[in-house]
C-alpha cells in the first residue's frame, strides 16, 4: 500500500547507525529525526553552524538566534557546539558527516542529483547548502515521492533538471521502495509493504536490478 510520509521517514531512520553525525535537509528529511529510536544517539548537524541540534522548543520558548537550515527554531542537546559557516561547510566537504538526507526533483540511476532548480526560465534560483551537502557526506540519501504529481518517474536515466551533484546519491527512499543507485545502476533494496516489484518497476524510468 506504499509508505506514508511518516512511515518513509521511519524507514530512512532505520538506516542511520547509532553514533552517526547526520544532516537532514529542509522539508521531508527533517522529519527523520522524529523516528530515530531513543536508544540511538545521533548528532545532528545544521549548516548554519551547529552540531548537536535538538528538537523544536516548546511554544513560547523559541529563540530565533538558534535555528536550523530551514530557519525554524530548534534547541541544543548536551554536547552541542557552535562554529562559523566556513568550518561548518568544511565539515561537509571533507567527508566528516556520516549521512545526509535530502529531497530531490530527480535522481539518475548513476546517482546524479537534481534538487535545487527546475530549470524553468522565470524561476528565481536558490542553492543554499545543497551542492556542498550532496557531494560532501559519506553517504547521501534521497527521500522523495517515487513519481511526480503528473505520474512521471523521478528516478531517471539522466536528470533533465540542472544537477546539484554528480554520482553523489547512494540510496533513494520513496513511497514505493528503497533503491540503491550508482555506477552499476539502480538496484532494489526493499519494497514498501503491499507494493509488487512489477508495480514499482512500472513506475520507474530505469531498469531496477534485484
Amino acid at each position, binding site marked *: 500500500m506504499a509508505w506514508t510520509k511518516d512511515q518513509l521517514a521511519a524507514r530512512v531512520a532505520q538506516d542511520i547507525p547509532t553514533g552517526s553525525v547526520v544532516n537532514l535537509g*529542509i522539508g521531508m528529511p527533517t522529519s527523520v529525526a522524529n523516528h530515530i529510536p531513543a536508544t540511538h544517539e545521533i548528532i545532528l548537524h545544521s549548516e548554519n553552524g551547529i552540531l548537536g541540534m535538538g528538537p523544536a522548543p516548546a511554544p513560547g520558548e523559541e529563540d*530565533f*538566534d*538558534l535555528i536550523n537550515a530551514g530557519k525554524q527554531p530548534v534547541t541544543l542537546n548536551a554536547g552541542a557546539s557552535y562554529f*562559523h559557516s566556513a568550518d561548518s*561547510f*568544511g565539515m561537509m*566537504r571533507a567527508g566528516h558527516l556520516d549521512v545526509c538526507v535530502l529531497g530531490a526533483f530527480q535522481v539518475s540511476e548513476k546517482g546524479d542529483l537534481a534538487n535545487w532548480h527546475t530549470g524553468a526560465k522565470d524561476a528565481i534560483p536558490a542553492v543554499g547548502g545543497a551542492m556542498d551537502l550532496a557531494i560532501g557526506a559519506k553517504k547521501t540519501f534521497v527521500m522523495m515521492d517515487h513519481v511526480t504529481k503528473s505520474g512521471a518517474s523521478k528516478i531517471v536515466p539522466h536528470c533533465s533538471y540542472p544537477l546539484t551533484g554528480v554520482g553523489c546519491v547512494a540510496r533513494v527512499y520513496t513511497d514505493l521502495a528503497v533503491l540503491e543507485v550508482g555506477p552499476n545502476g539502480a538496484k532494489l533494496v526493499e519494497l514498501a509493504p503491499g507494493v509488487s516489484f512489477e508495480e514499482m518497476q512500472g513506475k520507474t524510468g530505469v531498469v531496477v536490478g534485484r
Partner: protein
Amino acid sequence: MINKILPTLRDAVADIKDGATVMIGGFGGAGMPNELVDALREHGAKNLTIVNNNAGNGDFGLALLIKEKRVRKIICSFPRQADSHHFDAAYRSGELELELVPQGNLSERIRAAGVGVAGFYVRTTFGTPLAEGKEIREFNGVPFVLQEPIHADFALIKADKGDRWGNLVYRKAARNFGPVMAMAAKCTVATVHEIVELGALDPEAVITPGIFVKRIVQIPYVPTPGMKSKV
C-alpha cells in the same frame, strides 16, 4: 589608547562610498545586523555590491535597501524566500545582478580573502551549471573547481559582546558568517549588545580577535524576530 567603540550606528557607516562592496552577516534572521543595514540605508550609499547568505526578506533591512535600488549586485546562496518580494521584483526587472554561490563556496571564498588565499579548489559544483566558466582541474583523478576569494570594503556583522579592542563573542547560531566576514573586509563594523571591560572576555573563548574588527557600536538586545521558512 585603542578604542574602537563608536557612539552611533551612523558614525560607523558614514564613510561607505557609492560602489562599495559590503558584506552583511547573518543566516536568516540570526546574526542579521539590521540596525547597521538601516544606518547604511539612511546614509544613502548606492550602487552597492552586497554579500549575504540571503537577499533580504519582508519589508526591513536588506530588503528595503534593494527596494530603494541601492544595490547593483548581490552575491548570495539563497535569495528565494517566502517573503523575498523586493529581491524577486528587482531580479525579475533585470536591474539587480545576482551571483549565486553555494553556501560552502561562499563562506570559504570569504575566509580565503581573510587569510590571503588567492584561489582554491573544491569539488562542489562540478558537473552543475554553477561551475560554468570556472576552471576545472583534476587532483588524483578527481575533478575540482577553482574558487576565487570574495573581498569587501566593509563587513557589517552582529555580535553579542565586545570590548574596546574589538574582540567579539556571538550569540548561539547567530555566529554563522560573522567571523569569516570580519576577516575578509577592509573595515569590519560590529554591533554588540554589551560592551565589556578589556580583559573581561575569556581569551580562550574569544571568537573574533579584535585584529579583524575596526568599529563596534552598542545596541539594545532585541530578540531576533522569526522568519518565514524557505520555500
